Structure formats: structure tokens, C-alpha cells
């Protein structure tokens, strides 16, 4: 009787809990198994952090924080500084994002705002094909076909900007086709599908009524995009860009093959370089002891960096999605 007059949660929980006690064993077991599978995600993430840090502990103990900021990487002399690889990871990922983002957003806008649905579908299929080409195939193509070809392009650019301030030191003559810039380009091809599809999802949530409102005011398509689509999807696209950045930082095999395998810090983007995933992939096989521990340490740093980028990206995406629902 009281539950009918009082609609408090305590009153509702009473009869529900007696019901759940009568639930058969199979039902409860199924729920427990499902919960266990869900918790596996958290368990794996914690185990990754713990086990790789453990393996890296002797590097952290020997080199400490100084090791992270040291530029000398000389396995023969037991010197393992991480800074050159952190630099390389940053440079290649930024090159990839700077190239991939305008292209991805352009294609996303093309798909959502310009072409009709029946034409958009085959275009989406083609973009998906790009995502299915494995990293190692990009690397194989990159080192055997693309790098030798692009070296000529680099030579042309280098002689064109020679002596020009800012551009001159950035785009000097290449030593070979394998360089920071080649790795950045290949990574750009690889993250384009993910940034495109995420941007497309974000742009698709813009209310049709706002588009039509802009058109009704006499806006051109470009003006409609700037006035109605952009304010709505800004946050989500920033999130998509950060997710692309995280991908570019962690992509291993393609970068390992085309980056040039030289741990250097330079402003010169056509010079051979190195980044964290590439050095781990290339040198882990022959490493042992402190050397292996240092490579594990690079892995831990990479894990931390990508987790941070992903957390920020997901938070931005969630926030903009919530605001969209509120609107």
C-alpha cells in the first residue's frame, strides 16, 4: 500500500530485490560472465601498464628522468636517451595530422553536403578500402616504390627553397627517400580513413533544420557550412583530429620501414629520423638486458602519450555529443 503512495527509490527497491533473489542460477551466471568480459577491458589496460612498466624498471632505475630527456642513444655504450625518439614521434605525427586533416574534413564535407547518397556510398567504400590496406603493405610500398620516387620531389623542393628563411632549414636536400617527411606522408594516408569517418559522423549530427535555415536566408553552400555545420561540429572534429594524432603516434611498421632509422633531432624534415614505435620494432629482436628494458621504457612512454591523447579526444567528443543532444 505504501509503495503506491510513496514513489521513492527505497520503496521500489524492496520488491525488486526479492524478485532478483529468485532469479535462477543460470541467469545469474550469465550476468556474471558478461560482467567478467566487460571487466576484461579494464584488467587488460591495468595489466599493460603494470607489466610493461615492470619490464622497463631497470631502464628507469638506471637512467631515471634524465634518460627521458637525454638525446644520446648508443646501445653499444649502454646509453639510452629517449628524447630523439620522442621528437621523431611528435614530428611525424604532426606532419601526418597537418596533411590528413584538411583532406579528411574536405572528403567528409563532400560526402555529407555535396554528393547525393547514392554516390556517397561507393566513396565510403573506397575510403574503407584505404583502412583495410595493412600497415606493413604501406611500409613495403613506401620503402620500395614511394621513397625512391619522392626523393626526386624532395630534391626539387630543396633547391626551390634554398636560402629562403624558415623554409630553407626545414626542407633541405634529402639524403635518401627515407625521412621524417616520408614517414609523415605515409602515416597521413593511413589516418585519413579514421579521421574522415569520425568527421563524417560528427557532421551528420548537424540538424537538417539549421542547414535549411541557412539556405533559406540565401546562403551559398560554403556559407551554410561555415554558419551552420562548423559551429555544431567543431568540437567533434577536434576530437577526431586528436584520435588521428594518437593513431599516427602509434603506427609502427610503416614508420619503421620508411623513417630512415637514425635517432637525430633536427629541423630538417627531409633528413632520416626515428620514432618510438619504429625503434622498438626494429631493435627489440636483438636487444637484451638494459637495452631491452630501455625499449620497453619507450613502449611505456608511447602508451602513456597515446592514452593521454585518447582520453582528451574522447572527453572532447563526449562533451560535444552531449551538447548536441542538449541543443
Amino acid at each position, binding site marked *: 500500500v505504501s509503495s503506491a503512495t510513496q514513489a521513492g527509490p527505497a520503496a521500489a527497491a524492496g520488491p525488486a530485490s526479492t524478485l532478483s533473489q529468485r*532469479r535462477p542460477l*543460470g*541467469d545469474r*551466471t*550469465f550476468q556474471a*560472465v*558478461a560482467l567478467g*568480459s*566487460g571487466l*576484461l*577491458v*579494464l584488467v*587488460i*589496460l591495468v*595489466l599493460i601498464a603494470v*607489466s*610493461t612498466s*615492470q*619490464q622497463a624498471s631497470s631502464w628507469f632505475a638506471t637512467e631515471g628522468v634524465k634518460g627521458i630527456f637525454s638525446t644520446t642513444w648508443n646501445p653499444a655504450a649502454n646509453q639510452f636517451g629517449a628524447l630523439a625518439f620522442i621528437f621523431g614521434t611528435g614530428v611525424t605525427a604532426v606532419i601526418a595530422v597537418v596533411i590528413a586533416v584538411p583532406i579528411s574534413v*574536405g*572528403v567528409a564535407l*563532400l560526402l555529407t553536403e*555535396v554528393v547525393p547518397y547514392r554516390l556517397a556510398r561507393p566513396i565510403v567504400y573506397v575510403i*574503407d*578500402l*584505404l*583502412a*583495410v*590496406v*595493412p*600497415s*606493413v*603493405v*604501406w*611500409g*613495403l*610500398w613506401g620503402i620500395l*616504390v*614511394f621513397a625512391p620516387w619522392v626523393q626526386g620531389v624532395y630534391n626539387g623542393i630543396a633547391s626551390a627553397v634554398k636560402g629562403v628563411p624558415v623554409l630553407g632549414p626545414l626542407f633541405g636536400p634529402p639524403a635518401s627517400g627515407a625521412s621524417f617527411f616520408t614517414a609523415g606522408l605515409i602515416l597521413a*594516408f593511413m589516418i*585519413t580513413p579514421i579521421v574522415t569517418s569520425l568527421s563524417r559522423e560528427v557532421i551528420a549530427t548537424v540538424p537538417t533544420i539549421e542547414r535549411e535555415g541557412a539556405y533559406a536566408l*540565401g546562403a551559398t*553552400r*560554403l*556559407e551554410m*557550412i561555415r554558419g551552420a555545420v562548423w559551429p555544431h561540429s567543431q568540437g567533434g572534429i577536434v576530437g577526431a583530429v586528436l584520435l588521428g594524432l594518437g593513431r599516427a603516434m*602509434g603506427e*609502427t*611498421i610503416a614508420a*619503421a*620501414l620508411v623513417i630512415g632509422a637514425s635517432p637525430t633531432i633536427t629541423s630538417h624534415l627531409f633528413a632520416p629520423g626515428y620514432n618510438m614505435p619504429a625503434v622498438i*620494432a626494429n631493435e627489440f*629482436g636483438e636487444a637484451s638486458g638494459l637495452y631491452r628494458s630501455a625499449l*620497453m621504457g619507450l613502449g611505456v612512454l*608511447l602508451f602513456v602519450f*597515446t*592514452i593521454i*591523447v*585518447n582520453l582528451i579526444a*574522447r572527453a572532447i567528443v563526449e562533451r560535444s555529443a552531449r551538447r548536441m543532444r542538449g541543443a
Partner: protein
Amino acid sequence: MAVITQEPKVDLREPAGWRRTKDRVATVLMVLAFVVVIVPLGFVLYTVIAKGASVISWSFLTSGPIPPNVLPASVGGMGPAVLGTIEITALATVLAVPLGVLGAIYLREYGGKGPLARLIGFMADVMTGVPSIIMGLFIFSIWVLHFGYSGLAGAFALGCLMLPVVIRSSDEMLKLVPDSLREGSYALGATKARVTVTVVLPAAIGGIVSGALLAVARAAGETAPLIFTILTVTAANPNVFSGANTALPAQIFVNASQPYVGAQARAWGAALTLIAIAFILMIAARVVTARFTRYPR
């Protein structure tokens, strides 16, 4: 009213002049962006097919062991790597797909909007962003150091990559199943487990299978998690549970940095095989989506 009738010459259909030019330029740039995407894709596919097709034959796909790098492509084949890829990917699928679907069932059917389900969902999203090489290092640390290199270790690493992807795609599909279906079953007195297994899952199975196939297609091409877990040997190892193994992506990685023409040719052949496997899985996913989806997006 009078103001409007005084300006009859304004053409409302299309903006003219500078505004229109800017609009046209923007459209051309968008089309150009698509062309920029198409060119490298076409270039890669063309090269892989042109260089790989002449290498591939039945004996290339089945015979082994993989010959030394100096030998030409006409000798021996990638049989061990094809076998390894199939057994490792299959094992990873068997491990990750059921767990991923169960995890999604927890998120959608049990957890609801509770804090734990939200945390797991968020962390699954974050886990999709963990680089594949980290999964390799992880399995190396907790498995390979204690039990040695094996196909199983490779399958664990690939499974870790697939798990969050399967959770997310299955979750999306379960979301599409209408609540009226669940409520109807409860009204008949069914338990939650029975409703989930016999009503909700069959209703969403098309989308779940197609999502899982796409996850498998991505995992089959992954290299970084394998090089630390299977060791990339040249002889075939039909026992996936013990002993060093090999796989197509790992073999391509090894061969790509070789100066020998034969090794490179074998890499192109293996690349074509790998892309063909990925495409077949992707087409299968499309077919499943087209034929078995009951509740489309």
C-alpha cells in the same frame, strides 16, 4: 510590401559574383581532397597487384619452408606464413569475439547507464587507441617471457586488439534492437539471460557478425603485435599452441628491408595474399550486413 515589389530584378535562385566563386572554389577543393585520397590508394593497389600477381601460384601459397633471401622468387613459397596467418587469426577470433560480444551484452543489457558500464564503455574506446605495438610488448612481458614464443601468444596480442573493437561494434548493434522485443519476452516470463540469448542476440546477429569480420580483417594485417610474440621463423608450424611460428605480415616486414630481388618479390606476393584475405573478409562483412541485418541504422 512596397519595398519588396520595388526590387523585382533580384534573382533569388542563385547567388552571384564573389560569393558564388568562393562556393565553387570550396566545392572543387573538396573534390580535390577526394582525388588526393584516391591517388595513393590506387598507386598502392596497382603496385601490389602488378608485382605480386606474377609471384603468386598455388605452390607459392602452400609450399615451404620459406627459402633464404638470396634465392629467386621461383623457388619455394610462403606456405608457412599463410598457414600461420590463418591459424593465429582464427585463434584470436575464437578468443576475442565471444568475449567482446559478452562484454557488449553487459554494457547494453545489464550495465545500462550505470557508472561501471559507462567506465567500461569509455575505456573500451580508449583501448581502441592503444597502439598495436604496445599489445605486442604486453604479451611479450606477461606470456612470452614465461612460456616462450608461440602462435598462441600472437593470438593473445591480436585478440587484445580485436576485443574493444568487437565490444564497440556489437554494442552499437544491440542498441538497434527495439525495446518492445525485450519487453514482449519478459511479459512471457522469460529470464533476462534467456531473452538476451534467444531474442536480442538473434535480432542483432547480422550486424555483430559483420562488425567482427571487419575486426578480423584489420587484425589479420597487423604486424607489430606479432613480431614480439611469434618470432617469425621460416618453417611451417601447424601447432599453434607451442613453438615459434610465422605469419604473412611479419614475413613481409622481414623481407621488405632485404636488398635481394627474390626476397622482395616474395614480400610483394605475400602482400597481395594478405590484401586479398582482408578484402575477402571485408566483402563477407558487407554480404552479411546486406543479407542478415534486421534492424539497419
